Each structure stands twice: as structure tokens, then as C-alpha cells.
């Protein structure tokens, strides 16, 4: 039995309605308890800001395309390298760090749970191997279904039960957490080098539209009672004028779940462009947020870009190819049979580019114009918008108009007239930030019941103590202190153990992987469906019996069972 | 005669690859393939031995006639025989010149060495027990 007492913590715990109370947190055997014995080890948080461990609801850190990003970028590996030291392995990489690099740097920032943004089912084993090598964060895998042949057939047949059964089988087989759709239908078109330009366009051969895929999957998601909602990377990412696609997509979303959103729209900055060309592109953040503000069934994340060189990597193969044609940087592509695609290419976001400046402004506008911080979460689509180590700077910008003004003064001259950022006065407060970086994610991902995202009795003791005294720092003026404060915790506690202290990892990790087993009724199960089996026999290149991820790949798997179809 | 060296895998080499002490492996790895016209010019029959020399070394192989091989090319299965005459210079790439080298090919009466003998020539001690 191990006990720990965190004393004098200035706790902000939005899920439990606590906002800046000084309290002690008692921990026993990895969970928060009422009290501990005198023998408990104790830490004095010295009235510092103490939050539940950070949760990243959309980050690309593990799997085939992330590793592609690494090995094609030795120049980045060199840029971000650190030495072996104490319990810390060597790390490499700045915008696509190695797995240990990701884990240590996230831990230094107080993050204890990560959702991998995209996992192709066929290659899930690779994702899980890298999960185990990201030892200080509990991991969850967004599982890609956007170009899934079995799903598209079910959508065409208007058979929601079947779509749900396919998802259920697949999540169980690959130990996935939720449904991810990236450019739905578009990734299949990219199998032929094509793309879709609207949500009512038909996917070649399969004759379904993105709108149909999205609505069917939303229904299937709720039928399966999955803890997370459908997680969507909208069609037409990155194209001037695409905001209409985004609004049209939002119009499709019913309100089906009382506990959380029915659609999680990710990195919406990339989907909020007006105009029609690169020359007249402008921000449509106002229109987007007007829609989201009136739809509690939608939660989005920012997709903030920052000015730096970084790596884009998504399942959106055609988009990445277009980016390659624009920038001429080295380009990798990896389409996955019967399932999805991916593309990887480095980019540089520069203040000299009017387009990049507008993109930067849009991300911040989305956050500032969304009334409830629960509906717009802080993300950069790591590393697509910026490496996650830049989150503290994003926090600083959201909390300080002065910081934003100083940045705006250095932007391209066109930014002001094509965005409204400079006119926005709102400054997020500590509570808003706590929502946008952990509480909101916990709610959106459906892991509050797993004890994540809050510090109530019974919660997992994932805690971040930041070197910030909220009573003596004015975030609106002293944004530098805010940025520095969020870069490195005093203590990051994971399941009751101090894993990081002032940025140094001091123990080896033992993370858990959360996955979902939605219990589908016997007569609907895919293992009994001859057509489903036939696809494996004839069109996949891996046998059905070799496809599922064996238990050995999840040394500490946490299975969440749901009573689907009830 | 000067030839351009080409090396590669073959099925017989692959089937014997984990039995490098065997006669089967020795037979496939020490075989080289020449165009029939080149063999005529060298004055050798199918199965005759040839001595291959490069700046890096010298090795004796058994010549087999193969029409698919172009005039002026010599194909040798990948393995210790081919490597006996390949230099370890990689031009900064890590990859030696396994293909495209110009080498000398001449008929010879010297015997074909076994893999064990090749290894002993470079300082090893063969392990024969199985």
C-alpha cells in the first residue's frame, strides 16, 4: 500500500465545481481517497496551481504514419535530441519526437492521458507497440473508419445495425477506443488518386456520400454506447471556402447523448476558411462558432497553428498530396487496404505568409468566440499545427490580450482585415484553461467514469502541480510567467506516483491502454457474417485470424464494456 | 576478360542459406553465370572453374552458362564468395559496391574453396560439428 499526500494545493477541478480552493489531496494505491495515514509521504504544493493531469484528446504520437514522419526526418531527430540521463532514455526529435521523447515532454507539461488521433485497424499492432513505449501516459486509440469498405457497404445498404456491428467487431479486434473519420469517403477516392469536394458527392464505386457515412456512423456510435462520440476530421480540410462544408456537416448532427457531445469535430481551424482562393482566404470563425454555440451536441478543438517548422501527418492522403504540390517538400504517402490512407509532409508556418497568419488567428478566434470552453478544446493537432510543446504559448495567448496584440503587431499586414482576432477582448481565466486542457477532454472522451479529468474521491490520482501562484500572477499582463509555468510542472503525479519533478522523469512508467468492447448481439456479430469473412479471404492480405491485436500487446489493458443495442 | 559484376538472390541460395556449411550451399554460392558467347570466348565449358579477381581479392567460382546474362556481365549469387572480391569502400553511404564493379575473369585449375576455408582465409576457424 502506497500513500501520498499533496498538501496546500490550489485546486481547480471544473468537473467537481472547484475553482481555486486550497486543499490537501490524499492518495492511496493510485486513487484519490478521503484521507491517508500519518505514514504517508507528503509533498507541499505551496499553494501552487494544481489541476487534474492533462488530457490530450487529439495527438499524433504513435503508429505507422508517425514513425514514417520520424524516419524520414533525421534533421528533426537531430534538432530535438536529449541525452540519456537518470531514468530517462535518449530522446530525439523536435516536432516528431521518439516515443520516449513524447512521453517525457508531455509528462513535464503535466499530461497523463493521450488519445492517439488516428490508428488504421490493419496496422493497430504498431500503434500498440508504440503505446507501450510511451510509458507515462495512459493511451487511447481513435480507430479509422473513413474509407472502410465493409462500413461503406453497410452505409449504402442503409443498414445501421450492420455498420455498428462492424465497428464493434473492429474495435474489439484492434483494441480501439472510438470511431475516427478522416475526410470520410475521400480516403477511398484517394485509392485512385482522387478526392471528394463536397459532403454529398459520391465515393467512386461505393456510391455513398460523406454525409451518409457521417450520419450512419453517428447512429452506430450511439447504438454501441461508445464512451466517446464520432470524432470527425471534416472533408475539404485546408481549402479556401471550406467553412461551408463544415457548417453543412454540423447541420447533420442530431443531439443523441445527454452526457456528452454527439460529434467531436477536430482541428476546426483548418476547416474555417472563407474566400475561394489563397489570395482572398479569410476567417469564418464567427460563422463556425455561431453554429457551435447553438449546438450543444458539438464539441470541437482548435487545431491551432504556431509559427515554426513542423510535420503534417494525417489519414487525409489527398490533402497531404495537395500540400506537397504547394510546398514541394518531401512527401510520404501510405494508403491502407480496405480502410484508409495517410500522408506526411513537413511544413513551415511563417509570419511572412498572409495565409499562415490568418490560420493562426482563426484558431484563437475559435476559442475566444465559443461561449463555453467545454465546447472548444485546446489542441494543435500535434504535430500538424504545432508540436505539443507549444501548448503553453497557446495558453498564454488565450489568457492575455496584450500577448495577442504584441503578436498581431508582427503579423502580415493583411491579417487584420481578414480576421477579427485583433478586436477580440476576451481573456480566458484559469478555470477556462483547466476546462480546455483536461476537464473538457475527459467529458468529451467519456472517461470521467474511468476516474479521469477530476480529483474527486475514487478518481485516478493523475495530478499536475504547476509552479504558478494564481493569487500572485496576472495572466493578462504576465503572460511570460504563464507560458513558463505551464511548460514544466513542479510535480506530475501518475496513478499516485510522482513521475516528473521539475521536468525530470524520475521513475519508469507503467501506462494503461483503454479500449472498448461493445457487446454486439450474437446474430449480428461479424465473425458470423459470410460477406465480412469473404473480404478477408479475398481482398485483405492478412488472414482474419491474424488480424486481431493479441492481448500480449496490452500489458495493462483496460477494457470498457458497453451493452450495445440496448 | 573483363566483366561487370552483378550479384543477387536465387531460390537455391535461399533454401540453403541457413546451412552455409553444406555442399548444397557451397554449390549455389560459388556459382557464377556467364553469357554462353562469353564462355566460348573464354574457352570454357559449362561447369568449368574461373578465377575472379578484383582490387579487393581473388576467388574461384564455377561457371554456368545462362542466356539471360548479357555479354560482358557476370552474375554471382550473394554470399561469401562474391564478397571475397568486393571492397568495403562505401563512398560514405554505408553500402559497398556490390554491383557494377569491373572485374577480371579467367579460366583456372584452382579448386573452389569451401565456405569454411573462405572464413579461415580471413582469420576465422570453421565450426564443422552439427
Amino acid at each position, binding site marked *: 500500500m502506497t500513500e501520498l499526500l499533496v498538501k496546500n494545493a490550489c485546486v481547480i477541478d471544473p468537473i467537481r465545481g472547484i475553482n481555486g480552493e486550497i486543499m490537501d489531496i490524499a492518495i492511496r494505491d493510485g486513487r484519490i481517497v478521503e484521507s491517508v495515514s500519518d505514514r504517508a509521504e507528503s509533498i507541499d504544493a505551496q499553494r501552487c496551481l494544481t489541476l487534474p493531469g492533462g488530457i490530450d484528446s487529439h495527438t499524433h504520437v504513435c503508429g505507422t504514419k508517425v*514513425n*514514417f514522419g520520424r*524516419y*524520414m*526526418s*533525421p534533421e528533426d*531527430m537531430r534538432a530535438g535530441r536529449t541525452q*540519456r540521463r537518470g531514468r530517462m*532514455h*535518449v*530522446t*530525439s526529435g523536435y516536432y516528431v*519526437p*521518439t516515443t520516449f521523447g513524447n512521453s517525457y515532454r508531455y509528462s513535464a507539461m503535466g499530461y497523463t492521458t493521450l488519445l492517439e488521433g488516428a490508428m488504421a485497424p*490493419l*496496422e493497430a*499492432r*504498431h500503434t500498440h*507497440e508504440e503505446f507501450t*513505449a510511451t510509458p507515462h501516459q495512459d493511451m487511447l486509440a481513435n480507430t479509422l473508419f473513413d474509407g472502410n469498405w465493409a462500413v461503406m457497404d453497410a452505409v449504402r445498404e442503409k443498414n445501421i445495425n450492420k455498420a455498428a456491428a462492424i465497428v464493434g467487431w473492429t474495435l474489439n479486434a484492434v483494441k480501439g477506443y472510438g470511431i475516427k473519420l478522416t475526410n470520410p469517403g475521400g480516403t477511398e477516392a484517394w485509392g*485512385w*488518386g482522387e478526392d471528394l469536394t463536397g459532403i454529398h458527392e459520391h465515393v467512386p464505386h461505393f456510391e455513398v456520400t460523406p454525409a451518409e457515412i457521417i450520419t450512419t456512423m453517428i447512429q452506430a456510435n450511439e447504438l454501441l454506447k461508445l464512451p466517446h462520440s464520432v470524432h470527425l476530421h471534416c472533408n475539404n480540410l485546408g481549402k479556401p471556402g471550406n467553412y461551408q462544408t463544415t457548417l453543412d456537416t454540423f447541420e447533420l448532427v442530431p443531439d443523441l447523448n445527454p452526457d456528452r457531445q454527439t460529434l467531436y469535430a477536430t482541428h476546426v481551424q483548418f476547416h474555417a476558411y472563407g474566400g475561394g482562393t489563397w489570395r482572398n482566404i479569410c476567417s469564418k470563425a464567427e460563422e463556425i462558432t455561431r453554429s457551435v454555440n447553438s449546438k450543444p451536441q458539438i464539441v470541437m478543438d482548435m487545431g491551432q497553428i504556431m509559427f515554426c517548422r513542423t510535420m503534417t501527418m494525417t489519414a487525409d492522403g489527398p490533402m497531404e498530396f495537395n500540400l506537397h504540390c504547394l510546398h514541394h517538400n*518531401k512527401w510520404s*504517402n*501510405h*494508403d*491502407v*487496404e*480496405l480502410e484508409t490512407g495517410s500522408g506526411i509532409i513537413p511544413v513551415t508556418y511563417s509570419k511572412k505568409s498572409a495565409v499562415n497568419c490568418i490560420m493562426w488567428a482563426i484558431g484563437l478566434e475559435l476559442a475566444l468566440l465559443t461561449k463555453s470552453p467545454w465546447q472548444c478544446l485546446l489542441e494543435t493537432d500535434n504535430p500538424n499545427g504545432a508540436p505539443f510543446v507549444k501548448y503553453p504559448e497557446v495558453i498564454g495567448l488565450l489568457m492575455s490580450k496584450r500577448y495577442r496584440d504584441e503578436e498581431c503587431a508582427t503579423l502580415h499586414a493583411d491579417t487584420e482585415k481578414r480576421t477579427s482576432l485583433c478586436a477580440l477582448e476576451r481573456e480566458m481565466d484559469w478555470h477556462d484553461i483547466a476546462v480546455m486542457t483536461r476537464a473538457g477532454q475527459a467529458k468529451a472522451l467519456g472517461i470521467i467514469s474511468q476516474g479521469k479529468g477530476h480529483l474527486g474521491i475514487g478518481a485516478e490520482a493523475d495530478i499536475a502541480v504547476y509552479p504558478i501562484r494564481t493569487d500572485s500572477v496576472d495572466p493578462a499582463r504576465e503572460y511570460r510567467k504563464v507560458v513558463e509555468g505551464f511548460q514544466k510542472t513542479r510535480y506530475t503525479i501518475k496513478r499516485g506516483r510522482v513521475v516528473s519533478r521539475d521536468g525530470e522523469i524520475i521513475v519508469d512508467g507503467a501506462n494503461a491502454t483503454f479500449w472498448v468492447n461493445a457487446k454486439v448481439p450474437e446474430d449480428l456479430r461479424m465473425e458470423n457474417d459470410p460477406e465480412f469473412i469473404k473480404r478477408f479471404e*479475398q*481482398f485483405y*492480405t*492478412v488472414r482474419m485470424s*491474424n488480424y486481431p491485436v493479441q492481448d500480449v500487446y496490452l500489458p495493462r489493458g483496460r477494457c470498457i464494456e458497453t451493452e450495445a443495442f440496448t | 576478360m573483363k566483366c*561487370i559484376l552483378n*550479384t543477387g*538472390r*536465387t*531460390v537455391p541460395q*535461399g533454401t540453403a542459406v*541457413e*546451412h552455409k556449411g553444406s555442399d548444397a550451399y557451397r554449390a549455389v554460392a560459388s556459382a557464377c553465370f556467364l553469357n554462353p558467347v562469353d564462355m566460348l570466348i573464354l574457352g570454357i565449358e559449362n561447369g568449368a572453374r574461373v578465377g575472379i579477381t578484383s582490387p579487393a581479392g581473388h576467388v574461384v567460382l564455377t561457371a554456368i552458362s545462362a*542466356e539471360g*546474362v*548479357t555479354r560482358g*556481365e557476370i552474375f554471382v549469387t550473394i554470399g*561469401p564468395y562474391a*564478397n*571475397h*572480391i568486393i571492397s568495403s569502400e*562505401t*563512398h560514405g*553511404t*554505408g*553500402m*559497398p*559496391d556490390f*554491383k557494377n564493379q569491373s572485374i577480371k575473369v579467367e579460366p583456372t585449375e584452382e579448386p573452389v574453396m569451401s565456405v569454411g576455408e573462405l*572464413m579461415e582465409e*580471413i582469420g576465422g576457424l570453421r565450426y564443422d560439428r552439427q
Partner: protein
Amino acid sequence: MIVSDVVCPFCGCLCDDLELDVEGDRIMHVQNGCSLAESTFMHDTRLPAPIRRTTTGWENISYDEAIKETADILKDADRPLLYGWSSTHGEAQSVGVHIAELIGAVIDNTSTVCHGPSILAIQEVGHPGCTLGQVKNRADVIIYWGCNPIEAHPRHMSRYTTFATGFFVPDAQRERMVIVVDTRRNDTANIADEFVHMEPGGDYAVLSALRAIVRGKESILPKKVAGISKEQLIRIAGICTNAKFGAIFFGLGLTMSRGKYKNVRNAIELTDELNRHTKFVISPMRGHGNVYGSNEVFTWMTGYPFAVDFARGIAFYNPGETTAVDILRREECDAALIVASDPGANFPRDAAAHLAKIPTVVIDPHVNATTALSHIHIPCTAAGIDAAGTAYRMDGVPIRLKKVIERGYPDDAEILKKIYDRLNGGTGP
């Protein structure tokens, strides 16, 4: 007893549809595999016990002794080299990297003399590729360039390309066009629809010529390029631009010929160019069953896919400097651990010779050429036969190798962990 859906660990195809007839600790029959698979599973002779070289011959030693002495050799070395890794599973590869990091060694894998140049090219221009099932289901044009699948990847054509029935290509033999580009008319060329007979060393020029044609600049070409007529080049380029889905598979013909990674780069850039006209992909034909796995494991752990040098306490990568052949040629390493590979047979003689001059330990199920150059050889399981573990297919798809029989050997991951423990004073990686 029949074991089905067995994964063959031999080559990069990682065929996973084999059926084995197993009796006790013997594999009696292999169904669905090629002759390389049959040899792998049925003619699997092992070194019975660890051996150590003496002044006069070889002596048997115990596993404990062998492990202890190996740890001592590595600990005493100033610049140890840990090489190979391509035929074992990811679990062992991970421990290898941990050992290298712990003792500041150089760790390299067989890509270094195989598709290392392909990796260098990818690091310059990227890799537009896909999984093999995409090719099987869609490709109507297949190009084999500088490789010979009939001999090196015997079931590649029947499982993934020429003869494989695909969803959109149901009449594979009629609907697919196969082009072979090579310096000699090999067996694959004999069954191709078109053979492009190229002079040795001509790859770069021919690729450039094709790119020029695809860009509409055929007028600048001479009558022949590397022995190939302009007419044939124009025809080939036309087949490519008119394809619905084209796939280029390439091998050592590109990586080992003059130009090496520049050849591969040019092929990738041709693929890139073709993507502006239609859908095209390019893939390296990886040789060993799990060489891609060693690239993947090395990369997520260290940042680099091969030739990783930990001597500075960081991960450092510089092919030409930190690659195994160069380190051996410069006689820079003073101890070597060779795992699941055979540099004695596959390295140029000078590099292999150095292994005999330093204390070299081999961990491999089979006696191989490197055994003769080593000081200690420790036999272990063979991944995919008597040890289960992860392997990565040539297209990056990870498959779990099965343990089909038990032969009483320790898993090489276990041996390596014990070595690690001895080097680390008792605690695991």
C-alpha cells in the same frame, strides 16, 4: 496436428497463410509456402548448445557462462558494434537498442547493406507508398525494377501482384501489365509483358529519361539511354501515365548499383511525378522477414532507422560513418554482437575479417559463416518457428509470428535481457 495461418518469417512477404503439419517438435509438411518456406520450417538444423572458440577448436559451454562472458566482452569494449537484428522479432530488437544505449554502442541492422540507400532516399524525398493489398486490389500496371521476385520473393506475384485476384482487378492475368527493368533477362523478365533491358549502371539515366517524357520533354532525349531505345522509353512512360493504378517495386538493382540512394531517389521522384497524372506508388522489396521491423523499432526508440551510434550519450546517425561496414573497415570497433544475421557471408571480406580480430559473439539459431569468425555462438529460438513475436512486412504491416513448436532453446529476447541485466547491475531495461 495441423496449424493454420502460420506466418513465414523468411522474406519480406511475410506470407501468413501457411499450413503446417506438426508432430511433436518437428514440422513434417508445409502447405501453401514456397520452397524458401519449406526449407525454413522443415530443414531447420540448429547449433545444439553454446560454443566458445579455443586455441585449438571449439568447446561447448553453458548458457550462463556464455551470457556472462558476452556481458564482460561488451562491458570491456570501448566501441562495441551490435549488428543484425533482421530475422528476429521486435521484442529482441527493443532489448538490443536498450543494450546499445546503456553501453554507448553502435547498433546497426541489415538495411545497411540492403535497402539502407532506399532509406537515405526516403529521407531526402519521402516515400509515396501503400500496403500490398492496395496494389492487389487496384493495380493494373506493375513494374519490377532491379529485383527478381521469382527468386527472392517467390510468392510476391501470386499474393500481391501479377497473379493475385483483386477486388477491382478480378481477371488479374489479363488486366495487369507487368514490366521488368533489369540488366539481365532473369526469370521474372521471362514472364513479364514487357522487358526493358538496361545496361549496368544505367538506372539513374533511365529514370531521368522517363521523368523527362512524363513532363513532356521527350525531345531532349537521345536515341538510346543506357541501351534502351527512345521508342521503348516513350512506350513505357505512356503505359504509366495511362495506368489506373501503377506500382513500382524495386530491389538491390537500384540500391547497390552506382548512384545507390540517388537511383532510389530518382525512382521516387518519378513516382511523385506520375502522381500528378494518375495514381502511382513505389515500394522497396525488403529482403529479410523482419528487417523493416528493425527499422521501425530503432526509429521509435532512437529516431533513426539504422546505423545508430550512442557513444556520445545521444542517438547519433551518420551513414558512412556509423554504418557497420564502415566501422569494421576502419577497424573502429573492438567487440561485436551479431544477432539474427550473417555478416560473415554478406559483408565484403575486409569488413568480415575484422570480426575475426575482435571478440565477436553471435546469437543465432543456426550455424552460419559468421560462426567461424566468432568467439562465442549462442543458439536461440528462431522467430516464427519456436518463438512468437512481432514482425513488420515489407509494406509496414505488423504481423505476429507464431510459435509453432518447442525445441528447448531460450528466446533471444531472454538471452539479451540477461545480458542487459548483467551490464546494468541487476535491473531490467
